[in-house]
């Protein structure tokens, strides 16, 4: 209350919403104008893509040839580009495990270097004997090996993106443990994760960091493969332009598969001749702009292979494939490793079970919503955690105390 009164009283504090409001209005007008033009371009690009139905092998080759040299993301078609699969029948009973994680980041201004990873875990079974287990498992990480990766004498701190990578690994390991505990193979099942299975956060990381996290992550996928439990992940409102990248190749004058030539964006012939690049109509489009119009509720589009460098180079037999599916007004992206994508029965299982989860969850998978609820760390929890640390350090007579900067932010001073 005191802080609020100060904010009202002092015009120099806080966000100037009046100034921001004008800019927000301008932004809205621009967005409305752009939407119309991008819908028309998306329709044209969709038509362009469909003229290549039957030539998927050709374009798969073009994708392989362009992978290193194209400036955009690519997806290699695994099924015909005009594939539309209706929702397979739902099994009368099924099980599902899901995890989601969150963290309390390492606070450099805090009393002691440590962070918390909290993994929400969900097991659900539908059918004759419906049941649910919702739990969360917090881990306090403070040992040297939690805080740093060691590369010879060098120490690489685990924070920011690397902490997210560690959390992703922990989510996977928790999912494998959950599957081992609850899924006995008697019912159709799926292990569901939130977000992408492609570990983008590691794409730009140095080799030693990639090795450390990827080996653990692939171990988890391997465990699931051996148990034959299909792994999938759900991305709500995907913004990735990988299929669009492959359509760009169809427009590119430099691609010549017969001559073994892919797109080379740094030596774009259009640009060098002073023309607008032929792929310009794809600018700003994403995969869902292309797939959205083709799919009715419950239908899925073709399976595609993500050609991101980390996926192609590090995932081995677990390379991440994906398809788009319509759930009500939303188009989602469902990802799965190669060994799931290659078994038609698994693909159908993932398709129908993920859709059913969305249907039960009002548009978003119940299991993921529940896992998120279990995992979430609210700001009140954060504060309680900091107080817990400070009081515990004090009782243990360990050196502690927060930085002056942190202290200055606790209260507004008059």
């Amino acid at each position, binding site marked *: 209350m005191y802080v609020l009164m100060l904010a009202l009283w002092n015009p120099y504090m806080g966000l100037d919403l009046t100034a921001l409001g004008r800019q927000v209005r301008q932004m809205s007008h621009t967005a409305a104008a752009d939407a119309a033009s991008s819908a028309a371009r998306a329709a044209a690009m969709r038509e362009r893509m469909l003229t290549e139905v039957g030539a998927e092998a050709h374009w798969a080759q073009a994708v392989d040839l362009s992978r290193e040299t194209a400036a955009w993301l690519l997806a290699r078609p695994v099924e015909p580009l005009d594939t539309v699969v209706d929702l397979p029948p739902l099994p009368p009973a099924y099980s599902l495990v899901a995890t989601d994680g969150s963290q309390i980041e390492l606070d450099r201004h805090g009393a002691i270097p440590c962070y918390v990873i909290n993994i929400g875990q969900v097991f659900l079974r*539908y059918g004759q004997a419906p049941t*649910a*287990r919702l739990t969360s498992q917090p881990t306090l990480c403070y040992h040297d090996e939690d805080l740093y990766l060691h590369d010879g004498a060098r120490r690489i701190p685990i924070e920011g993106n690397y902490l997210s990578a560690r959390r992703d690994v922990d989510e996977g390991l928790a999912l494998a443990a959950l599957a081992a505990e609850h899924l006995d193979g008697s019912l159709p099942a799926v292990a569901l994760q939130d977000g992408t299975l492609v570990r983008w956060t590691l794409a730009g990381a140095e080799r030693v960091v990639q090795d450390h996290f990827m080996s653990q992550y692939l171990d988890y996928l391997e465990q699931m493969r051996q148990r034959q439990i299909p792994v999938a992940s759900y991305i709500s409102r995907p913004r990735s332009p990988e299929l669009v990248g492959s359509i760009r190749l169809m427009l590119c004058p430099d691609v010549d598969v017969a001559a073994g030539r892919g797109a080379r964006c740094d030596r774009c012939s259009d640009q060098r001749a002073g023309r607008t690049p032929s792929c310009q109509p794809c600018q700003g489009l994403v995969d869902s702009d292309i797939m959205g119009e083709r799919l009715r509720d419950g239908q899925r589009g073709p399976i595609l292979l993500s050609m991101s460098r980390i996926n192609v180079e590090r995932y081995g037999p677990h390379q991440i494939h994906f398809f788009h599916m319509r759930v009500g007004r939303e188009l989602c992206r469902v990802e799965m490793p190669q060994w799931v994508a290659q078994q038609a029965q698994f693909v159908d299982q993932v398709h129908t079970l993920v859709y059913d989860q969305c249907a*039960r969850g*009002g548009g978003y998978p119940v299991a993921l919503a529940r896992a998120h609820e279990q995992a979430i760390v609210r700001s009140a929890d954060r504060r309680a955690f900091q107080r817990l640390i400070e009081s515990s350090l004090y009782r243990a007579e360990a050196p502690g105390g927060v930085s002056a900067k942190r202290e200055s932010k606790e209260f507004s001073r008059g």
Partner: protein
Amino acid sequence: MQRIAEVIESNTTRFTAGAYELHSAPPFGALVRAATRDAQLAVYGLVYEIRTGSKEPGGRAVVRGRTYSGRELFDDQIYFENPDLAEVLQTEFSALTVGFLEQTALYHYLPPHPPPVHYSVYQCSADELVHFSEDYACFRSILFASQVPNDELLAAYIRSAARVRPAGRDYLVRAGRELAGLLKDDYDRLAALLRRIRPV
């Protein structure tokens, strides 16, 4: 007797317990017993409010009777189709403290300490209810407690105490006389209360 709930909030005059099973709180007006740190001392309360809601503070249930695909679900079907509901909803009940048991002696006034949070709550057996309701001293504290449905609570308690007795009608008559004494200067309230415990 098996424990049915666990204290989740408590103070000198009342306590709230979370039921282990969704939707299975003891009925309104039921006598419940809460354990305390002293094994010889148990606190008695009367259930005056039962509620079911989200375990999450501020969380609310959403309607689920019409599925995404337009299928209609009714009542327990909704729980069958959404087994996670039993994990995120909680039934809890509040009880007005009306007395305590110390060793073998019963007292119809407030105990020295409320039951601690997380201690067990049991529903009282018929014998226990007969024993406790022999004395009318708690009628007064029920009638004049704040923020409880006083008259409804007292009537429900009296009816349940009569039901577990072979001579239930006699009990109702005796309880009625006691009420007449307590409410001698409020005829309307007395009449309304007596109508609620009239023998049938």
